[in-house]
């Protein structure tokens, strides 16, 4: 049996996808496969969720307008069953088509993610978080999973009495941990000093998840925040069942779109990668907007960010360059190739040293 699980044969990305699929499958998540196209209308209706993404559209043979999928979550929601007691656990790895923020051109991006949809409860939220942490650990041990809850900021913003435009501005400042401008804005809006202090404290808060309930309790204002605190406290009490609690932090400046996300939100970081590679949360609000009454929690991993990521496996293209000449016996060359492959080494049999291939060592056969 030939060993083909060698590190050099696969890119870090391919190996990660392979292992993640295995992990999700073991937890009872089923693969969700979708077609490349959806009706253009479908994405237009939910354009905000796609963060103003441009969509590649084209006309089908029958004249209807189709789009290359920019997202998978929306399609999963569309197909979700919506009845009490039912929940679906799905994962996907699909190419999506989006515009790159830096080049403003379309890019094909490999996206992987999982969604738990339907009559979900705290077990599902905890399991999703723990799978998020496990997924990150599988990519690299040096990771961090930041967790927050939309309820805290939402209720403080309500208490501050901010209007649409100022609210948007403040959300931007909170997510940039920009205390100096946030305090100036709140002063300008005439927000009470008590609420201002709480908003600023929340903006700068970053503690290990286990310390979050204690740190958050003085910052709770309103029912939504009380409920959020209960949820976080429940997460913490279950934290021992998560393998990697030491890598989990509570950071209230972490926010996803409030029109879609309403509960726990989280983002994963890998040391050396400048952006969050994993993003997710509870999105019952999005479900409601799409006419579903049940809840959902899930996350996506942006595999394109791992492109430049190296785990040292890609230093060589092939282990052995096997050089032979015309005089060599064909059988001898083939049997040497099989011998090396049998030893677990990758081999490239060539008559001359090829350009642009990096190999660990060279071996000559015959002459």
């Amino acid at each position, binding site marked *: 049996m030939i060993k083909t699980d060698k590190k050099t044969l696969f890119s870090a990305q391919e190996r990660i996808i392979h292992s993640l699929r295995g992990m999700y499958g073991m937890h009872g998540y089923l693969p969700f496969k979708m077609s490349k196209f959806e009706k253009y209308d479908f994405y237009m209706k939910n354009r905000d969720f796609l963060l103003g993404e441009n969509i590649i559209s084209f006309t089908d043979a029958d004249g209807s307008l189709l789009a290359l999928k920019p997202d998978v979550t929306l399609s999963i929601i569309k197909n979700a069953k919506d009845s009490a007691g039912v929940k679906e656990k799905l994962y996907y790895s699909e190419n999506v088509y989006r515009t790159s923020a830096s080049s403003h051109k379309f890019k094909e991006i490999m996206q992987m993610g999982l969604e738990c949809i339907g009559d979900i409860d705290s077990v599902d939220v905890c399991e999703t978080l723990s799978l998020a942490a496990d997924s990150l650990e599988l990519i690299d041990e040096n990771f961090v999973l930041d967790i927050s809850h939309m309820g805290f900021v939402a209720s403080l913003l309500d208490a501050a009495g901010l209007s649409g435009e100022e609210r948007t501005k403040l959300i931007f400042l909170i997510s940039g941990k920009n205390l100096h401008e946030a305090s100036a804005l709140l002063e300008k809006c005439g927000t009470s000093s008590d609420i201002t202090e709480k908003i600023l404290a929340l903006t700068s808060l970053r503690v290990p998840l286990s310390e979050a309930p204690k740190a958050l309790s003085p910052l709770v204002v309103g029912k939504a925040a009380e409920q959020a605190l209960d949820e976080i406290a429940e997460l913490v009490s279950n934290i021992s069942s998560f393998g990697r609690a030491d890598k989990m*932090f509570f950071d209230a400046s972490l926010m996803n779109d409030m029109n879609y996300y309403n509960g726990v939100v989280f983002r994963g*970081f890998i040391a050396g990668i400048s*952006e969050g590679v994993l993003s997710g949360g509870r999105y019952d609000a999005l479900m409601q907007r799409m006419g579903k009454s049940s809840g959902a929690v899930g996350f996506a991993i942006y595999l394109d960010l791992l492109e430049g990521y190296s785990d040292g496996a890609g230093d060589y293209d092939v282990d052995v360059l096997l050089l032979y000449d015309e005089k060599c016996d064909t059988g001898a060359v083939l049997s040497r190739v099989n011998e090396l492959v049998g030893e677990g080494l990758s081999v490239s049999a060539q008559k001359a040293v090829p350009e642009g291939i990096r190999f660990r060592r060279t071996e000559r056969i015959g002459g």
Partner: protein
Amino acid sequence: MKMLNIALPKGRLGEKVYAMFEKCGYECPEIKENGRKLIFENEEVGVRYFWVKPSDVSIYVERGAADIGVAGKDILLEYAPDVYEFLDMNIGKCRMAVAGKKGFFDDRRKTLKVATKFVEIAKAHYASKCREIDIIKLNGSIEIAPILGLSDVIVDIVETGTTLKENDLEVVETIVPISARLIANKSSYKFKTEEITRLSAALSEIIPD
């Protein structure tokens, strides 16, 4: 201790910024030697400085080549990088302003022609006033545009107003005050929280009024 990579804006502002870092104990004497070197390291205090074009600081930080950096608010408003903004350093102070020829009158029946380097800032400013504009993107010598009739007004940084005066221009309105800000890469902050927090706290103690 983890090394902090720090992007400093080349030029006068960068020197002032370095002086503040030095005062907080993050010195790197080598940096003061005149030469062509661009990267300076002091392992003892855990810093690696490098000089980059001021308008590029936010790119280095957003992409994680630098953990932290100091950039003008003008650049942060124009490019809106996804970074943390920890401090207003209160140096490099100036303002983003609209300027026109002396006695300029905004005739709202016409589309306003605006010349600027800061396209996004100009667009956002006029959009908030529902004013229709025609943006003319220039890369330098902006002041000349209204004089030659290329534009009605300019949107640019005004420090003392001397250049405007010498060209018979004046400030029509101030859009936003500008100063240097301490920014940090969001991912770096997760892994170097202690180092970045300590440096930011030390700097906040010596910010000039």
